[in-house]
């Protein structure tokens, strides 16, 4: 008897026992459903995080930030350290070969005035590298250039929202913005940056559109008068993701040496962060995977139970088939095909249910779900495995029935 014919007979049997089939498939439906839903959400979460990071530096970015000691008793040497400075950034650029871009940043809250508008805002002292680090480019005019740095120029570049805020509908280019009583010429307006997680309407990158940039040197010279040229943080872009750990170690060594051995800073390796987060996620993934597998197992046990419970009513059928010339293997294949049919039906329904689950959850938490072909294949493969495994015992039992006794069975 061919597989095709076994499937035809199996389908007839499945159709004839709709309630039984439904009960059999329930466990598999829920198992595959939860696996698919969870996997879809987790996958999309990972993708979104990577995409979000790509918007400002990607995975090759290493961040060096001030991290003052939390110890209560602070040594004199620690007190003497100025924290991160512009010269630290210059040292990194010179001494770390994998560092492609080095972008020190300092911010200061200053009074901004144009026409009737007057308010205090954070002003960012940046270097020309900033644009490349954040993949943030001017829509009109230009960004800061090396000349601006050298001449401590009184020029500024505005984010899209900042430009609207200060100038309303006027064209800001060439206008003079008054920052703490000093006139700064607007030389550029940046393109808008936008990133939305899921269906949410919160622009996760709006802070970039609100920026007001001046040359870092101008910030020191005109406003803070900081002789140490301290910075809040230094962005470093590394040539290749693979070189991140090497570069991070080199940066740590350079800065620590310059800080007289004091670790009052932290080197944050973004690729490392993402990897750690993926590792944490793996724990959750494993929990969901295990719960999915348990429901599949329970589903399989239910299938085997129901197959064994309905075994009696099929003994005679097995006897008849054997009398007609069915070999043990024919009977075993027929039973296996039926249990696999049941689980595959369950798996397919579960897949649909998983997609619906994922959609509902993604609407609730505002994060899109990604259902991949690979997951569909895994779901169906898992169902087949369950059907095969738990159908095996009833199938072997049926195949071994003695035809004489099976025919006599009432």
């Amino acid at each position: 008897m061919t597989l095709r014919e076994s499937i035809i007979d199996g389908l007839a049997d499945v159709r004839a026992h709709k309630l039984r089939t439904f009960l059999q498939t329930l466990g598999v439906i829920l198992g595959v459903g939860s696996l698919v839903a969870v996997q879809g959400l987790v996958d999309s979460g990972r993708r979104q995080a990577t995409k979000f990071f790509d918007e400002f530096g990607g995975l090759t970015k290493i961040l060096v930030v001030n991290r003052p000691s939390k110890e209560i008793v602070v040594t004199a040497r620690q007190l003497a350290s100025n924290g991160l400075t512009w010269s630290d950034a210059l040292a990194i650029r010179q001494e770390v070969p994998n560092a492609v871009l080095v972008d020190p940043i300092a911010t200061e809250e200053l009074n901004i005035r144009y026409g009737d508008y007057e308010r205090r805002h954070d002003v960012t002292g940046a270097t020309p590298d900033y644009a490349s680090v954040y993949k943030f480019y001017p829509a009109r005019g230009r960004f800061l250039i090396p000349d601006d740095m050298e001449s401590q120029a009184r020029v500024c570049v505005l984010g899209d929202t900042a430009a609207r805020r200060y100038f309303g509908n006027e064209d800001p280019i060439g206008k003079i913005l008054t920052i703490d009583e000093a006139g700064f010429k607007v030389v550029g307006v940046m393109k808008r940056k936008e990133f939305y997680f899921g269906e949410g309407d919160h622009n996760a990158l709006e802070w970039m559109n609100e920026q007001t940039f001046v040359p870092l040197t101008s910030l020191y010279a005109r406003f803070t008068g900081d002789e140490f040229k301290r910075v809040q943080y230094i962005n470093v872009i590394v040539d290749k993701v693979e070189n991140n750990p090497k570069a991070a170690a080199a940066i740590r060594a350079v800065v620590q040496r310059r800080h007289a051995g004091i670790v009052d800073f932290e080197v944050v390796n973004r690729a490392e962060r993402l990897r750690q987060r993926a590792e944490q996620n793996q724990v959750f993934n494993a929990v969901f995977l295990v719960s999915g597998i348990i429901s599949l197992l329970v589903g399989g046990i239910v299938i085997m139970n129901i197959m064994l419970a309905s075994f009696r009513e099929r003994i005679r059928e097995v006897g008849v088939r054997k009398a007609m010339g069915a070999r043990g293997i024919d009977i075993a294949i027929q039973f296996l095909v039926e249990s696999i049919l049941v689980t595959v039906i369950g798996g397919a329904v579960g897949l649909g249910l998983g997609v619906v689950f994922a959609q509902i959850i993604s609407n609730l938490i505002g994060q899109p779900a990604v259902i991949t072909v690979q997951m569909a294949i895994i779901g169906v493969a898992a169902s087949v495995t369950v059907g095969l495994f738990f159908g095996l015992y009833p199938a072997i039992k049926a195949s071994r029935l003695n035809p004489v006794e099976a025919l006599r069975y009432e």
Partner: protein
Amino acid sequence: MPVVPAVPDADPVQPIIRLEDVHKIYGSGEDEVRALRGISLSLDPGAYVAIMGPSGSGKSTLMHILGCLDVPTEGEYILAGTPISQMSPRALARERNKRVGFVFQSFNLLPRSNLARNVELPLLYAGVGRAERRERAHSALHKVGLAERAKALPSQLSGGQRQRVAIARALVNDPSIVLADEPTGNLDSKTGQEILALFAELHGQGHTVILVTHDPQVASRAGEVIRIVDGKVSNGGQP
């Protein structure tokens, strides 16, 4: 036990069935049951035979052996020139499929399959292709007058019709013997007569038909009656 080889030249008419001193013993020790105690018989092709006997006489056991559902404990069974006694379950399944058409008292049709599918069953296990299966199932159903109901389910049929379908199924593989176990036992007498008439017709067409029954009226329709008592042939194969 000497095995008599099937040599076509030695005998102008090769018997379709030959049993030589067949014993069947179930269980062992104190539980031992000797169902058959040395049965020898020979049937020519085209015979129409009734096997009669009270319950417990061993006639069911004999039928199981004749139908290749079981093998003798001792003795030799040769069906259409093929020795059966030493066969594995797998080989027995093949012999049943090729050489035996079963008709049961309770019809034993598959309830969820239509008539055509039921009749096709032996062909499925013989590995016959779809088109040929269809054609042969149709012609077998035609023989029993149910060709136009091929798509019906067994539950939509009367008892007599169901037995006709079972007979069609028994014939579809063109078997050496048709083995009917109390084929009229579940039918009223008029329908039973129709079924017996059908068997007579098959006999007329040259089929070898073996009826197993306890009903003398049914047995009287056969050309030959073999009486089984206490696991032995009591009339020596004569009517």
